[in-house]
């Protein structure tokens, strides 16, 4: 018997005596990051981590604690802290309905994803050479590439295990490689940035040159950018910027946010919330995606969940507690880390592709802005409560299907729910693997642009 199982069984006896239920989520991982600067090793970071987080339920109160010490005594101490937190919360509950503890998951079988935990043997030398190439080949692309401030390789091994007092003991492990090259290109007084990344579960299949070529091309193509005149334009949202827009929806799709009166989609299931050509699916088994999982953070088996079908909102994303409170099916979207509280999050969100090529879309209207880059984080330009966004962006202006050149120094504004209704056409090629939001290009009938 492994020592964690052994410790957890002792805690199970304590919990029974305390009239409590307990769940232990363990994340264990190793990460290696290597980057070069001026062909000298800039960073070699190897981190190992192991964190365990308890969730304890006691008469309707839920308490949490976490620890990095896995000795039997430390785990018992952490259990007791979580119990004490559950009791403190229970003291604050006056509502009789809340006095029922939310349920814990029962043991079930999962769809196996064992092949994701690869044991491919890769030498440290090979990894370091690959990291070195991410910088070297970026410089080799064009003499206008003047800096490669960020280029690096990363290897991740991550393991997740969940145990609870109902008998769940499930484990999932995966290993993947990723990297990026981010360049600055300069022409006269203008500096433009461009970046590209890769994601692979198979080291042997990683190709560096296309990554560096794409990064350099992005930066070079933005040189000579002119300010965009203020106005309203038809927009092609490039597949690479869609994750930023779709991530604005995440909170609103959460059943927890619906219950907390924070979701703009409250009371909207069964209603049309998007153009009828839009289909959005949560797919935990799509191997292009970066968020695969056989089970969620409560131990519920993952499944494919259609969220928006022909423009109609089919369901919120739920976990055990919220599905019970809202009378919905449990979609298996409980999400937490050992150090955080239970919430709700999607796995891979996939927008179903259409039939248009990017060129078809760019020529579909007389004048369009091809939006290729969002600068800056959503925290600096998206308001969750209202769905309004106002984000600095870059792109290209097209007239009659012909590119008039790069444009920058503008802000694109709108509202995420209004944007969903304005989708008029969907492309056929997807963004690169590794994202947890997979989408083709989208044609949006009109958005507001503040520029020159």
């Amino acid at each position, binding site marked *: 018997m492994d020592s964690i199982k052994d410790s957890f069984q002792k805690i199970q006896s304590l919990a029974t005596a305390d009239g409590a239920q307990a769940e232990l989520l363990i994340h264990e991982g190793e990460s290696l990051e290597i980057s070069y600067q001026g062909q000298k090793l800039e960073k070699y970071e190897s981190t190992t981590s192991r964190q365990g987080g308890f969730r304890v339920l006691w008469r309707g109160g839920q308490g949490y604690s976490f620890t990095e010490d896995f000795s039997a005594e430390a785990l018992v101490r952490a259990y007791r802290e979580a119990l004490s937190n559950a009791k403190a919360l229970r003291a604050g509950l006056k509502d009789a309905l809340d006095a029922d503890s939310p349920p814990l998951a029962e043991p079930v079988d999962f769809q196996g994803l064992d092949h994701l935990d690869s044991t491919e043997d890769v030498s440290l030398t090979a990894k370091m050479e690959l990291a070195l190439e991410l910088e070297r080949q970026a410089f080799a692309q064009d003499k206008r590439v003047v800096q490669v401030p960020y280029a690096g390789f990363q290897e991740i091994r991550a393991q997740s295990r969940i145990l609870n007092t109902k008998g769940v003991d499930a484990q999932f492990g995966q290993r993947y490689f990723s990297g990026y090259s981010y360049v600055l290109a300069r022409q006269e007084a203008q500096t433009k940035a461009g970046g590209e990344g890769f994601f692979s579960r198979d080291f042997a299949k990683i190709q560096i040159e296309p990554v560096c070529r794409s990064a350099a091309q992005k930066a070079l193509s933005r040189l000579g950018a002119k300010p965009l005149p203020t106005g309203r334009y038809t927009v092609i949202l490039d597949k690479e910027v869609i994750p930023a827009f779709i991530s604005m929806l995440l909170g609103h799709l959460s059943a927890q946010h619906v219950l907390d009166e924070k979701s703009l989609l409250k009371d909207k299931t069964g209603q049309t919330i998007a153009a009828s050509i839009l289909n959005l699916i949560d797919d935990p088994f799509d191997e292009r995606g970066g968020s695969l999982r056989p089970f969620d953070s409560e131990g519920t088996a993952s499944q494919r969940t259609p969220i928006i079908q022909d423009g109609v909102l089919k369901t919120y994303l739920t976990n055990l507690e919220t599905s019970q409170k809202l009378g919905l099916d449990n979609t298996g979207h409980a999400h937490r880390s050992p150090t955080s509280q239970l919430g709700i999050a999607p796995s891979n969100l996939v927008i179903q592709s259409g039939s248009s090529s990017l060129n078809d879309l760019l020529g579909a209207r007389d004048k369009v802005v091809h939006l290729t880059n969002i600068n800056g984080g959503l925290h600096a330009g998206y308001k969750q409560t209202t769905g309004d966004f106002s984000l600095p962006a870059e792109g290209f202006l097209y007239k009659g299907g012909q590119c008039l050149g790069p444009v920058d120094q503008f802000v694109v504004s709108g509202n995420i729910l209004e944007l969903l209704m304005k989708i008029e056409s969907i492309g056929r090629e997807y963004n690169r693997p590794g994202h947890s939001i997979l989408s083709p290009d989208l044609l949006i009938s009109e958005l507001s642009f*503040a520029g020159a």
Partner: protein
Amino acid sequence: MLVNPAVLEKVIDASLATGADFAEIFLEDTYSSSLTFLNRKPEQAIVGNLYGAGVRLFFGHEVIYVTTNDLSEEGLIKAARQAANAKQDKALDAQGQQSPRQSLKLAAFDSIHRFGSRAWETGKDQKFSLLQSLDQIARSHSSLVTQVDAGLFEKFQKVQIANSLGRLVYDERAYSRLNCEVFVEDGGIRESASDREGHMGTAEIFEAMDKDGFVKTGVQRALKLLRAPFAPAGEMPVVIDNAFGGVIFHEACGHGLETTSVAKGASVFCDKLGERVANDCVTAIDDGTIPNGWGSLNVDDEGYPAQKTVLIEKGILKSYIVDQMGARKTGYKPTGSGRRQSYKFAPASRMRNTYIAAGNDRFEDMIKDVDYGLFAKSMGGGSVNPGTGDFNFAVQEGYMIRNGQVAKAVKGASLIGRGIDALGKIVKVSQDLKLATGMCGSVSGLIPAAVGQPQILVSKLLVGGRA
């Protein structure tokens, strides 16, 4: 002390075995607590412990960093060997000269901070009562308040840092922060506003704060936004309020002054030391020595005293923000600015309490000078690309300025610009300096950092409203 210095000397010896010319061990034992109040009831209580160490080696300009959760002598030596052996790989071109290790000598100092009771010794009930009072105050100010999300976050961090130059320090840091977000709804339209207060110290300070004033500001702002039209789009003069308005300097300039960017040539402020980068009215400071300041430190995360660093003096660039490796690469003196979220991150040059110093202008005169522009009263988050200097940040609460007077409230504005360009357009700085707390995310994680400024007038910025 978390680990006996004699053990650390052995660990440093093991880490220097392959020719590193500098070795450092950062050890941490951190207790944290997060309590939230939502739906008129206690929502969440999480407490926990971070416990680990990071071994960092320099070989010339090359850096190796290895972490472990095992603080036993064997565990630390294993991590030290792993770090040292990363250098032995054939892919590396050994160039470091091994320096002999100096004996560790404890650098004692008096803490510039005063802490009250420790985080875990105040009862949770008392803390939940505080959060509940914020909820009640918010709802008492308007019947349109539909939800209040209040949280109290505390961290008590013990750090021990030792390096091969003989430096040994031990420090304790307490942080506490109070958040309150208020949601309002009227006729199907929703809005929200959030505010926060934080300091280096323990949570009992919040008992004495003006809770009503703190919450009321947020409720009033959310209510104003309910009825506000979208800000217009286009370039215009912008007056930015004091306190959190300082996020503009943090984003537009601060990140570009960190040697993390400067040493790579990836900053628009490279090679500009001694040059004019702003008008005479602009003096900017990064100060790690403000007692109980949110971004203050007795010693930084590399074990050296925090300093008060004048970055820009009357428009002339005087200093960068320099950590130990940044100093090696650029030749500038370290400024006590090596910071990290936890042992899971290698330190990097980071801001502490960063602000534009008080000037000579009056707020009223700034407004009077503007025919048509924006008064950005409350700022949201910001971000920047230090390589291009492009920054953006959200205006939470804004007003149009028309004919020299503050006019109607507007929502949905964001401000964008380029670092040096925007800095050069600051034409007036008021006398009323205030600081505010923020969380800053960058290469070495998420850290507490204060921003600040007096009111300033920027002659022209692009306002991203609705066209």
